[in-house]
């Protein structure tokens, strides 16, 4: 059993509107799974189905080998994008209440809360009301409440929104640590830079359909363009440029470099390899920059979305 969560042919309709159209995806155990998609693509609908807030019209969901059932609520932690806490309730009381709703005993919850509050150094807030805390502080409390019951599956919907860069970094670190400790994480966002940083696997939903999924590396390989950015210093630039243009597709590049000389984007064609390119260049002059232009998650996102239109 390598997948913690299997989503099979899930369909969800609201009246005439189809929010999810036959969506399937497998989420491997111990991964950080990026659930990506533009606004209104159907991410939240899918997350709500996993959380059993709504039921799919058809299709099924398997959590750790079992069909998803109400008892699994205790194994799932969910940080919704629209988050909030009871404003006039005290931090400690509130955390205990929410933990108990997830099926923890009061004493167990108290113990775990102490651990997390110490870790985040927020123990002094226990008797403060949420309305007395800043937004960032409240977010920290909310994060603790989400992970407190050590769920097998953690679902974070835009977890970094509302955090300053330092706290965002702290939360990112905690999320990765939770993964290392065995939790599986679904990470829904449309902020692509955090995807690069966090995710092992991704799935892309667009207009209610899943249009792409797999390991992030594999997808990048699939979307690789074989374009290399090179910085090159030579005495007879024109000659070399001419020779390069015969063998490769060449265009000018614009990157920052401390060296002078040619800055080019070179695309491998006609079965040439990166080795061929590099050995040709080193035989003609001094190479000071040689990087494969790997497509960013952002590029892939945009390309994949555009492809469907």
């Amino acid at each position: 059993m390598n997948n913690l969560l299997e989503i099979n042919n899930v369909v969800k309709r609201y009246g005439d509107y189809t929010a999810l159209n036959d969506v399937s995806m497998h989420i491997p155990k111990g991964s950080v799974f990026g659930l990506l998609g533009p606004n209104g693509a159907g991410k939240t609908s899918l997350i709500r189905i996993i959380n059993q807030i709504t039921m799919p019209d058809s299709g099924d969901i398997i959590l750790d080998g079992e069909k998803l059932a109400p008892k699994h609520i205790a194994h799932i932690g969910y940080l919704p994008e629209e988050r909030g806490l009871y404003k006039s309730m005290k931090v400690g009381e509130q955390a205990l209440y929410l933990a108990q709703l997830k099926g923890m005993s009061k004493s167990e919850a108290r113990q775990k809360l102490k651990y997390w509050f110490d870790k985040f150094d927020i123990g002094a807030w226990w008797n403060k009301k949420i309305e007395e805390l800043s937004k960032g502080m409240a977010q920290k409390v909310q994060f603790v409440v989400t992970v407190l019951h050590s769920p097998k599956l953690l679902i974070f919907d835009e977890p970094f929104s509302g955090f300053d860069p330092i706290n965002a970094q702290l939360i990112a670190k905690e999320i990765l640590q939770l993964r290392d400790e065995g939790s599986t994480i679904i990470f829904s966002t449309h902020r692509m830079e955090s995807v690069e940083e966090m995710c092992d696997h991704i799935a892309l939903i667009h207009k209610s359909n899943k249009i792409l999924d797999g390991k992030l590396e594999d997808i990048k390989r699939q979307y690789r363009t074989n374009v290399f950015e090179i910085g090159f210093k030579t005495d007879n630039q024109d000659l070399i440029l001419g020779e390069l243009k015969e063998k490769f597709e060449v265009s000018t590049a614009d990157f920052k470099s401390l060296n002078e000389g040619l800055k080019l984007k070179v695309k491998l064609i006609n079965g040439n390899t990166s080795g061929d390119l590099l050995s040709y260049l080193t035989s003609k002059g001094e190479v000071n920059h040689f990087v494969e232009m790997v497509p960013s998650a952002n590029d892939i996102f945009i390309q994949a979305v555009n492809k469907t239109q």
Partner: protein
Amino acid sequence: MDKLKLIIQREFLAKVKNKSFIIMTFLSPLLMVGMGALVYFLMKKNEEKVKKIVYVDNSGIFSKETFKDSKTVTYEDYTKLGVEETKKKVEEGNYYGALIIPKKDSLEILANSIEFYSKDSPGLSFMGEIESKVETRLKNLKLTKFGIDLEKIEASKISSDIKMYNFSGEESTKAKNVASIIAGGAAGYLLFMFVLIYGTSVMRSVIEEKTSRIIEVIISSVKPFQLMLGKIIGNASAGLVQFFVWGIIIFILSMVLPMVFGIDMTEMQSTRVTPEQMEAMKEAAGGGKLERLIKEVLDLPLLKMFTLFIFYFFGGYMLYSSLFAAIGAAVDNETDTQQFMTPIMLPLILGVYVGFFTVINDPHGPISVIFSYIPFTSPIVMLMRIPFGVAWWEIALSLFLLIITFMSSVWIAAKIYRVGILMYGKKANYKDLWKWIRYSS
């Protein structure tokens, strides 16, 4: 079930710990009793001020015999002074008013020629009092003129008290009717107040969860239905506690205050009405009014009333609070609730009106009966009818309809609630609600 308990507990504590709730719990009865005491105090002050009336009787048929001094009014004969002189004196001096009785040929003309002069316009009841004095005197004069012995008239007075029974042999009296009106009215009004205060409190609590955006966190742990039910029960529990505290405080205050301020409760009863009215009431109630009333209240089918009160209270509250919860879920903030509130408030208020205007006059008339079947008004109207005696099958039918309706209203409300709590931004209308009801889970 454990989760439901947790939710009820939280809702209860959130409500009870709320500062304004605590303040209202202790302040309301103080205010209520305070207002009562203030009204009493002012009335007392008002009555303590003795009205000095002077009269000029040129007809010569009135005397101190007719215008007896009372606690609040004294009369003085100024006939010797003459009309103009008296008027002047009254205007300058510390008198309330002057009654000018001219000399006329016939009593009929005289009856409509008497004038009263005063600085302020006198109250209706005060004028009524003087008029009745004058009328009695004139009537007696006429009776004597017709050769009728006044003493015989006095002796011929007789009072009849027809005893009323229903066919199950229970005695019903007018006092019993009064007792029924009081008991039924109190029960119905209590239910109305409770539904109004705590139903809207449920609604506000739903809106709060929506605006603070905690709702999605909560319903990823519990079913929306559990949350709604927990809210309804939690708020009702807080409400019962509040009503209970109110009851105790008002009871204590009404015992302690009269002792502290030396207010005589029996006096309070009697000073409100004129002696003549007292007499009439005593006659109507057949003597020993207050004692009789208390006895009649105790004679009512109290156990039956209490049991049915619990049923109607529960049914009525569930019916309305579930609808209030649905409204809370359908809107984003309290200002948007108005369009949905009106159709709910209407039957509630209608129930109270029908109860107080129709049931009291005609507890078994068609309007009373119909409204005591309609589930939206039956909790109030039927509670008011029960003390007058209602056939068991009527109660059964009314309760049956109420139960069916509250179960469907909870079911429908749950559907609206489930969808509504996750809807933001868009102002919902009735069409939306209908759509939500038809959504599958």
